[in-house]
């Protein structure tokens, strides 16, 4: 286990030094800031309009203060306006996260083989299985950090804009994380067979969303769409924790099977 952790730490260190990855993460951050600014502008213009309407109406009645019912109305308007923005925010961070995951996992082992650095690492008492699992774990740690950052960003976003988080979006960082691990494991397996870029594209389009039962591909290919909460956020539907548990179990089963296949492939792969 110690060896796997050492490889994972090395993998994280390598990823932090990847300019493209840092660029992707910065782009994701920029997207978050852009959404915050957009949301704030929209919110201010809505309050301004509501207030000016209220003043115009009050001038005829001789009062300028907002009544309790007017305040409730304003809050409801801001809340209804926030749902598409929360869904948009979720969609952007989820998409950026998927790109980050594909990049991380498809290059984790492949770049070591391409650069030849794997030769020195595997000349140490490190088995191929330990190497692969270490690299995967390093990627998982980076994706967990990404999920944590997006969670914090979402809460900060909600706090600064003064609205409650949509009940569906509260589970989104975890479900997003599970989905990205599925994508990542598949990208890693495919990168042992084809070029990392092709592996990423194949993994991205590997979902079963294009098929429906009784097509066998529907049952074989991963079901990423179940992890998306975009429509739940828009409609404001609740997500049951039992559904989350089942989805988590599905994701971990999928990852375990794919990793076993990757280990099997990697054990016989020529590394020069």
């Amino acid at each position: 286990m110690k060896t796997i952790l050492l490889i994972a730490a090395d993998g994280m260190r390598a990823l932090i030094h990847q300019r493209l990855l840092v660029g992707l993460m910065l782009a994701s951050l920029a997207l978050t800031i852009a959404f915050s600014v957009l949301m704030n502008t929209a919110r201010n213009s809505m309050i301004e309009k509501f207030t000016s309407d209220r003043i115009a109406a009050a001038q005829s009645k001789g009062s300028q203060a907002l009544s309790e019912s007017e305040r409730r109305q304003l809050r409801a308007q801001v809340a209804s306006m926030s749902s598409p923005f929360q869904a948009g925010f979720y969609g952007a961070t989820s998409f950026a996260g998927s790109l980050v995951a594909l990049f991380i996992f498809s290059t984790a082992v492949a770049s070591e083989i391409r650069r030849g650095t794997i030769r020195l690492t595997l000349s140490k008492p490190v088995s191929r299985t330990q190497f692969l699992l270490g690299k995967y774990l390093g990627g998982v740690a980076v994706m967990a950090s990404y999920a944590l950052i997006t969670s914090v960003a979402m809460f900060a976003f909600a706090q600064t804009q003064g609205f409650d988080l949509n009940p569906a979006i509260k589970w989104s960082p975890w479900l997003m994380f599970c989905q990205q691990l599925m994508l990542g494991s598949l990208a890693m397996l495919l990168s042992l067979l084809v070029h990392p870029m092709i592996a990423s594209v194949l993994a991205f389009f590997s979902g079963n969303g294009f098929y429906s039962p009784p097509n066998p591909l529907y049952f074989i290919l991963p079901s990423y769409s179940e992890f998306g909460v975009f429509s739940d956020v828009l409609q404001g539907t609740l997500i049951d924790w039992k559904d989350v548990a089942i989805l988590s179990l599905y994701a971990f089963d999928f990852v375990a099977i794919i990793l076993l296949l990757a280990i099997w492939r990697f054990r016989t792969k020529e590394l020069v």
Partner: protein
Amino acid sequence: MSAIRTENLSKTYKSSFGRNETSAVRMLSLEVKEGEVFGLLGPNGAGKTSTIHLLLNLIRPTSGAAFLFDRPVTDSDVHRRLGYLPESVNLHTYYRGRALLNFYAALCGVPAGERENRIAAVLKLVDLEDAAEKQVSKYSKGMAQRIGVAQAMLHDPDLLILDEPTASLDPVGRNQFRELLLELKRRGKTILISSHILSEVESVCDRVAILENGALKRVGTLQELSAGGSTRLFVAEMSGPVMNALAATKAEVTWFQGQVTIRCQDDAVRQTVEQLLLENNVEILRRESEKQSLDEIFLSTIKQGPTS
């Protein structure tokens, strides 16, 4: 116990569509004993690096088997006793020198308390103490090679596999490296060294193997390999008929101040000449084997052409 053993080891590469096959290693059977310094020689494409990659389990053999310390090379645990320096040292460039060595030391299982001392010792050994805190990406080729040597020796391994170890070193570095190899040899380490620089191999190796087109052409100590080379026979004066008979052989005969010197190029010629002299009652006063340099052995072996 043998440190390295290969049994009919073969490696064939196939092209993408399996139409063309290239044999990198052919039925190679070798044994390197513990404490031996063994040279792996051969022209470019002879199969030296492929053999090393097979020993490190970086590539899989098409047939045959390879063992390190009598354990299959697929057992990564045996790498605790192994240090490896590749031909081109590709390092994780996001580390500083000392941090990189710390990572490798941890992988080798060097206890945390001992790492600092071990790292300091190997940095001193390869003369990289001043560059220990420098980013590896800023290292020159020679510095990368030296930190490559350092990582190979971090855990004081019993076996060192060195693939063209001095390729990127300047003459001073090469000399230091030769001294280092001799020191390691004195300490009883087993070393497998692949090199194009024959003088370097000659000065440190106990035995050498010469590969060509993936096949083993010759193996043995330098003495064994030079045996069967040319021999000079010194005899007293001979009669005309004997001289005529000698002229019919491939031996070179020279006469100087009453002494005849017969130079026999190989064992077969020597045996023919000795038989002839014996039949004619000519006494052989002295025999001298001409010692061949490794360069000569290597070139004569390669000139013989591919092994059938």
